[in-house]
């Protein structure tokens, strides 16, 4: 399915987006079934109608100008839908998961599962999004898809309360413990300015594909926690980072292995009291999603969405200076999709 969609958008350009959205909508059996079930329940009728309307009134309809192949987009920004629906559209616009995952490859999908808080609190990546990404990887032919995080709260509780463990297992992904030091192997980080080595989860050393799935949120130490900050969950000793110029260490880690794809969950955004949050009052529902292969650009765009200037966020600025990506969003081709 993603192939057909990407073909359609390649041939038809932005007009294709409409077709592509239509295809996603009508062809995706799962969604169809879901919609039908809701419809029969009597509560889905409005959703269905609303869905059609939003498809017809999407600003891509009028904003269509230059047709571009998916690879030409540096970033896809989606808003207005449920996390898994936005991802379907976003990844389709990027050319489908097969662009990133080849048959027989192993994949690490790394969400933020740092805290023992429910999904409404916006402390962890949305479980529906994580599960949908895992599903796309498996559909693309991945041999295994692994999910883990080196959590801050008790890992068993984080995995459970976040809903991520159950959601990922349900679609066939493997949930791997992140709390055992023996899983972490020392790697050299030659291009780091401060961080010269770190103990990294062995999955990150062995996996073919690395998909980084952070949630956008406020952070008391790093100002914001997005894609680069999410890499702190692949290392063992975080205290070292905190002792030795945290912001620089965050940027340094990116030099070791850049994620092949960054998917930023901005469905529920914790605007203050991050990264754990105190109550649901900290959270604003933005229903947005960003996809990019450029981790710095992804962070820059997400920071904007959060309401900060990327150049004011120390680790984003440092990463830009170290040429790990760009914060110059104007130089990027961004496809904006409204669901």
């Amino acid at each position: 399915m993603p192939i057909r969609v990407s073909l359609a958008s390649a041939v038809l350009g932005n007009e294709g987006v409409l077709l592509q959205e239509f295809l996603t909508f009508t062809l995706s059996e799962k969604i169809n079934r879901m919609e039908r079930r809701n419809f029969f329940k009597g509560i889905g009728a409005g959703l269905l109608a609303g869905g059609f309307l939003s498809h017809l009134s999407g600003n891509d309809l009028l904003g269509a100008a230059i047709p571009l192949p998916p690879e030409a987009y540096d970033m896809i920004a989606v808003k207005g839908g449920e996390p898994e629906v936005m991802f379907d559209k976003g990844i389709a616009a990027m050319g489908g998961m097969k662009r990133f995952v080849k048959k027989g490859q192993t994949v690490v999908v790394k969400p933020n599962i740092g805290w023992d808080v429910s999904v409404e609190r916006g402390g962890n990546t949305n479980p529906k999004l994580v599960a949908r990404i895992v599903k796309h990887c498996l559909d693309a032919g991945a041999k295994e898809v692994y999910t883990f995080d080196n959590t801050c709260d008790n890992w068993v509780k984080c995995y459970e309360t976040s809903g991520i463990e159950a959601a990922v297992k349900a679609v066939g992904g493997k949930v791997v413990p992140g709390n055992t030091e023996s899983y972490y192997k020392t790697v050299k980080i030659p291009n780091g300015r401060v961080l010269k080595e770190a103990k990294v989860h062995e999955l990150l050393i062995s996996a073919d594909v690395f998909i980084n799935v952070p949630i956008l949120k406020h952070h008391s130490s790093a100002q914001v926690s997005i894609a680069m900050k999410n890499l702190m969950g692949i290392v063992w000793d975080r205290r070292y980072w905190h002792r030795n110029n945290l912001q620089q260490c965050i940027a340094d880690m990116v030099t070791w292995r850049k994620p092949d794809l960054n998917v930023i969950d901005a469905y529920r955004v914790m605007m203050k009291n991050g990264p754990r949050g105190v109550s649901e009052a900290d959270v604003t529902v933005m229903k947005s999603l960003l996809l990019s292969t450029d981790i710095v650009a992804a962070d820059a765009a997400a920071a904007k969405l959060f309401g900060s200037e990327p150049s004011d966020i120390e680790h984003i600025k440092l990463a830009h200076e170290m040429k790990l990506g760009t914060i110059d969003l104007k130089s990027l081709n961004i496809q904006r999709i409204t669901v």
Partner: protein
Amino acid sequence: MKSKTGLQIARLVVSVVVTGLIAVSFLDITASQPVWVANYGTHWQFVPSILSFLAAPAIAAGGFIIIALLTLLFGRVYCSWLCPLGFFQDVVGAVGRLFRKKKRRFQYSKPVPVLRYALLILIVVMALVGIMVPVVLTDPFSIFGRMMTHLAHPMVTGLNNLFSGWLSQADVFWLKPRTTTGFHAGAFLTGLSLTLIVGVMAFRSGRLWCNTVCPAGTLLGLISRTALWRINLDKAKCTSCGLCSSVCKAQCIDVKERKVDFDRCVGCMNCLNTCRQGGVKYEWLPKQPAPGSTKTPAMGEGRRTALKAFALLAVTVAMTKIKAATDVFSLKKAVKPNNRSHFVSPPGSLGIDRFNDVCTACHLCVSACPTRVLQPSFTEYGLKGFLQPFMDYHSNFCNFECTRCGEVCPTGAITALLPEVKKRVQTDIAHFVKENCVVNTDETSCGACSEHCPTKAVHMVEYKPGLLIPEVNDSICVGCGACEYACPTLPNRAIFVDGNLVHKVASEPENADENKEEVPEEFPF
């Protein structure tokens, strides 16, 4: 060998179930087993039940009343039917039997009441003045608990992790690796030595521990003196052959005198079917030996016993006073460079002194704690609280949502709190040490403490342009210790918690349970 009687089988079933429930609770490495499993097993534990009743009188907490009534009716059935340490001793005895083919395993031994009552008085008096160490070291349930927590739990965890590791090599992750309770020299050595002492005593002399040291045994023995159903030798039938006495692990059947020292009988019922003449009976109110000549010397003996007991007690109290004096000294020595005046007692314990007064250090909470923040103390509470668990924030921090320790605690030392209440209980307050803080010394960002804070009592304020530094709002700090745990500075922390002697109630942090919705009209890029 005769087949087992119905009573023996019943005893076996009850003891396996009760000890099984308790053992499973202590060995629940997932820390997620339903709480009732622990509660059903521990409800019947004599000493914890008394303490739990004293801590919060409630009929529901009256397991010990039922045990006392049972003892009044049937003798010390607790010791063979419900006590997990009794079960352990029986297992040791059974194993011992495999190695020793001696036909007459036991024979009658004379009671040593001086030691027994002196110990009981000592234990009770010390507990009354708030020194729980004697109870901690003698309560059979707590001894069994520490045996499980410090000897068996690490083995089970180790096995689990071994298999978990093998499976993960094969890319299978359904068996989760778990964290052990950790190694604590004090707790481990106490656990090991008491296991050895009780084990050797059981191997050599049956229930010698129960009839010499155990306070529950001595106390229940006093009650069982007037029990209605008793083991009795039929003097007409008894030939003093000693068969019954040879299976009596309490060594309380005197075949020469043809009588049973029922005070020491542990109610195992093993003697009932041994007599070829049918002379061993378990019957309603057997005729007591006639009062008179035999009773008067017993009284005199009793007085002498009491005198000796008090002498022993006086010596021990004096010794403890000396130790109590060194206790203050050791508390001072235990003060960390972070200038902590008190270590922290678990949420639900209401205060350090109260906790020290009630806890028997069975370590069920240590086994049940999912984060392993609860660790056995050594000198953290001073000698007074030896082995009682404390919140070790260098081991981990208290999970904000978790209330497990209070739910499993059998003595009421940690009361069960509702999550909403627990989230407001202030066990201690965080103290910020600016001189140690990375933000101050290195002028780089940190804030690990504030990151982990569940109420944002530790929040970040402007220090220099572009640089934030922690600040503590005492009123909403609950003392979970996450800040101290997360603080990366060495060798001392830049933030540490100081225990509240009496726990307080923290103010409610900003707490609205609703998300705002603001989907952007246009992306800001």
